């Protein structure tokens, strides 16, 4: 990590670490991203491979795939989003608790891909805000891991992470010690 968020010198602080609340919150969030696997097509197979022992997404604290939107932080849209399914994708996104992120995995989720037709939504960013786009058709698990690491980097550098705007309303998290 280039930027040091933690000032710690055992000779000076002893058993005390001095840091910013934002940095701690972001560090916690970035290392325990619980994905919501929105597997809609063949990208979901690569997503499953990323969960297996060869690629092992748990190295990044992301192995806790939650099929309930209430327990997930990051929706990985893996596959072709048809107009019929788009409604469901948006509804599941709405049900996820803040803070939440969206990864568009593969060509279809990012742009509609090769499905340029009457039935396919031309990119999931038309209905939900996307944080990371991953290219590939489908992307290999390494590409997914790279995208998720980019997402971690993005989470670590979020400013004002205790204060987020949600549907035009500012939500503030208070730390009680």
């Amino acid at each position, binding site marked *: 990590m280039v930027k040091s968020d933690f000032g710690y010198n055992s000779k000076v602080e002893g058993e005390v670490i001095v840091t910013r609340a934002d940095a701690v919150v972001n560090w916690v969030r970035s290392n325990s991203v619980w994905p919501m696997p929105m597997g809609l097509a063949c990208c979901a197979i690569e997503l499953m491979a990323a969960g297996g022992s060869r690629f092992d997404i748990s190295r990044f604290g992301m192995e806790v795939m939650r099929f309930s939107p209430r327990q997930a932080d990051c929706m990985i849209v893996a596959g072709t989003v048809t107009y019929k399914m*788009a409604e469901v994708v948006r509804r599941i996104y709405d049900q996820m608790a803040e803070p939440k992120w969206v990864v568009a995995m593969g060509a279809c989720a990012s742009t509609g891909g090769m499905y340029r037709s009457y*039935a396919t939504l031309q990119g999931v960013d038309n209905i939900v805000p996307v944080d990371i786009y991953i290219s590939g058709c489908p992307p290999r698990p390494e590409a997914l891991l790279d995208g998720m690491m980019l997402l971690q980097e993005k989470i670590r550098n979020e400013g004002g992470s205790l204060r987020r705007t949600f549907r035009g309303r500012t939500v503030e998290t208070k730390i009680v010690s």
Partner: protein
Amino acid sequence: MDAAALTSRFPATQDLAGKDMPTYRVAGSDLLAVVSALRDEQGFDLLADLCGLELQGRPVRFGVVIHLLSTTHKEYVRLHVDAVNDRVPSVSSLHPGANWHEREAFDMFGIVFEGHPDPRRILMWDSYPYHPLRKDFPLAGIEVPFPAADVAEVTGQKVEPAPMMGGPFVSHGGKLSEGEPSALDQSWTEEKPKA
């Protein structure tokens, strides 16, 4: 299979001399009786396929093709039915497997299957106004409202046409290199030949 029994009992049935399997054109009014006779008397107990088709330049625009398989005699038979006034009797009562096939044929072509137990769309959403595999429907699609009104309100999204031209698979300034893959210009159709 016993072809003579079929054609003598149903005089409207016409042998189309299929090259790969026995093929018959069956009148819509005879369809249920023919399928039922083939199933119960000649052993064609499995509905292998049922699909809709649009035939341009024919008096009846739509038709249905049914493939039946006999699991005892190991042979197929193909039945053509013209959809007069876009209507064909449903064979779901004889072969329950036809249920979803008929819903798909209805969804894509608008062929109404009379007597179908659940005549809804199967691929497109229920409020979709068109039948996309009809020849007069553009591949790119036609603009219609988003399926869910509440999602459309939040996102401002509509179901928009996505023509191949202008898409990511068609290069804009002509061919950049010989090695570059690019999709065909699909602005031409069977009626409007390529300029």
